[in-house]
């Protein structure tokens, strides 16, 4: 139990183009009510969206820190244009907050200063994690598609090097990023004249197959899973094995309740079937999946016996 008490719950950066007002309200409720220890902030997906958030950012940081949350700033996953290179360099050379780097351009700017490795950095194995640790990484978020045996081996290696290890346990999986904006494309536009149509889809734009089967979600240049990853049932295996941080990705559902349920699962204060039923209700019709964890197709929900 002692190990589990130390496990931290984190809230990943918002992947979607939520309005400034919605973000402010969201983080106010996170500050007041969500039992998460650490919150990642910043625009990771689209550099065009960043200006909409910048004005509010200091207020949000202050609000979260006042509530006792540690704030980490996340960098862009894709860096190509001048403004993206500049934003990445500006963030990577900051020393006021911890930063999470999601692109090699950020690693280049950061040098050997301490930093966290984000989920887009492809830290798949012990050799890469060792390399990253030697360059100043203090913490690594493992790729969402990593199956448990590899999570296990990567975690051992990272813990031996003194690194924090984080695994996404809730929310849509990032499946791909592109230079092209698929939100704009759906509306007959291009990235440069997108008019921010992505703001209309606070939980991603659903794609369905021609026989009406939901399959993927589009979020600007990002493609996400239709299902929410849910590793509630696998949490004890992760923490027992040394994973230090469990990441919840913000979705357009009651995230305070999601965080409370995951906290209950960690504490063992509620029975697992009960917690799972409540989570199922919160997520409404969205399918829940854990396939990646078991080395199966990511969308699958693999049934397991209830842990004793």
């Amino acid at each position, binding site marked *: 139990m002692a190990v589990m008490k130390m496990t931290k719950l984190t809230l990943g950066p918002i992947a979607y183009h939520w309005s400034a007002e919605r973000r402010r309200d969201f983080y106010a409720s996170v500050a007041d009510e969500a039992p998460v220890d650490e919150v990642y902030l910043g625009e990771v997906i689209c550099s065009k969206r960043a200006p909409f958030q910048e004005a509010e950012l200091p207020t949000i940081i202050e609000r979260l820190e006042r509530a006792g949350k540690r704030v980490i700033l996340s960098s862009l996953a*894709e*860096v*190509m244009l001048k403004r*993206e*290179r500049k934003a990445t*360099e500006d963030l990577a050379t900051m020393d006021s907050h911890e930063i999470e780097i999601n*692109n*090699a*351009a950020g*690693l280049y700017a950061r040098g050997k200063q301490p930093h966290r490795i984000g989920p887009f950095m*492809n830290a*798949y*194995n*012990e*050799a*890469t*994690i*060792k*390399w990253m640790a030697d*360059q100043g990484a203090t913490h690594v978020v493992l*790729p*969402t*598609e*990593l*199956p448990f*045996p*590899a999570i*296990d*081996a990567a975690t051992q*290696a990272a813990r031996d090097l003194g690194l924090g290890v984080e695994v996404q346990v809730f929310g849509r*999986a*990032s*499946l*791909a*990023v*592109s*230079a*092209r*904006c*698929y939100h704009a494309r*759906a*509306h007959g536009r*291009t*990235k*440069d004249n997108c008019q921010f149509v992505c703001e209309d889809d606070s939980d991603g*734009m*659903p*794609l*369905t*197959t*021609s026989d009406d*089967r939901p*399959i*993927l979600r*589009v979020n600007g240049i990002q*493609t996400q899973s239709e299902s929410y990853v849910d590793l509630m049932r696998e949490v004890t295996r992760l923490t027992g094995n040394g994973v230090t941080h469990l990441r919840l990705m913000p979705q357009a559902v009651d995230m305070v309740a999601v965080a409370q349920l995951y906290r209950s699962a960690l504490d063992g204060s509620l029975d697992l079937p009960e917690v799972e039923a409540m989570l199922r209700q919160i997520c409404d019709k969205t399918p829940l999946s854990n396939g*990646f964890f078991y080395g199966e*197709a*990511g*969308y699958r929900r693999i049934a397991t016996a209830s842990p004793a």
Partner: protein
Amino acid sequence: MSLAELICPAGTPAALRTAVDAGADAVYCGFQDATNARNFPGLNFTPAELAESVAYAHAKGAKVLLALNTYPPAGKVDLWRQAADTGARFGVDAFIVADMGVADYIARTHPGIRLHLSVQAAASSPEAIRYYCENFGVKRVVLPRILTIPEIREIRKEIPCEIETFIFGNHGLMVEGRCSLTNYLTGQSTNMDGVCSPASDVEYVRHDDGSMSSQLAGFTIDCFGPDEKAGYPTICKGRYAAPHRPEGYYAFEEPISLNLSRLLPELIEAGVHAFKIEGRQRSKSYVRNVVKAFRAAVDDIRAGREANIADLVALTEGQKQTQGAFETKKWR
């Protein structure tokens, strides 16, 4: 003017010999396992085949580049290291890598052999490229297929290594090395297993009205009328419906090939060192025709002659083709 080397695909020893005979400056290939991003059944090389192939290529003045461009999952790193050691023993001319751990191992263990940064590393800015150059001694970067020519020209000025770009073949539009679409539907990973929309999960289903659907792991990726030719179900080339597009549309990209032949002179002028032809999964005759045509065009351009671009354009005649991101930002 750049050297404009022609880098050609070799899915099998026979294709390798064909590409070399047709005028490839270099061929790229991989072993029959997860260490490369074209881990398809019936493709790739045994160690013995690689040894013979290196000898064949070198005798004819061509180089062999070994693709070790996937990401080893934790606990399986040794397979990638052994592949590098084997390649080094047989005298390959360069390794094409993406994973930092693999790059670090090769830089330390085989410092005499060139490292090329795979497109799977998704290095699309001068800073990202310099990170790999300065840390691992990377000599060449294979640029993602997402940059315009003016952008490539700018990058060229800011990096200390050579540039290789794709000019022909599959039009990959996701940032490579960051795509788990196949794993989401099939349980096989592009990054870890070298698999993309695997044939073993493909099914073509004929319906009562004569139409045909192409499926991957039971998901319908596209539908075709009775008289249409059914395409291969690659997830990012599929047809889906969205709230604003209930009729269904190609949400990411149409089934289309990349053909930059018209841009060849401009790319050479922009300082691109090497041109990559995609298609390790292609037949010998395809490799022969494509390599011959590009060989002639590159030689003409380098000699200051007018290249017969029409021949190159004709290579994809009857198929849809695109210049993708290279021509205009509007592709994005």
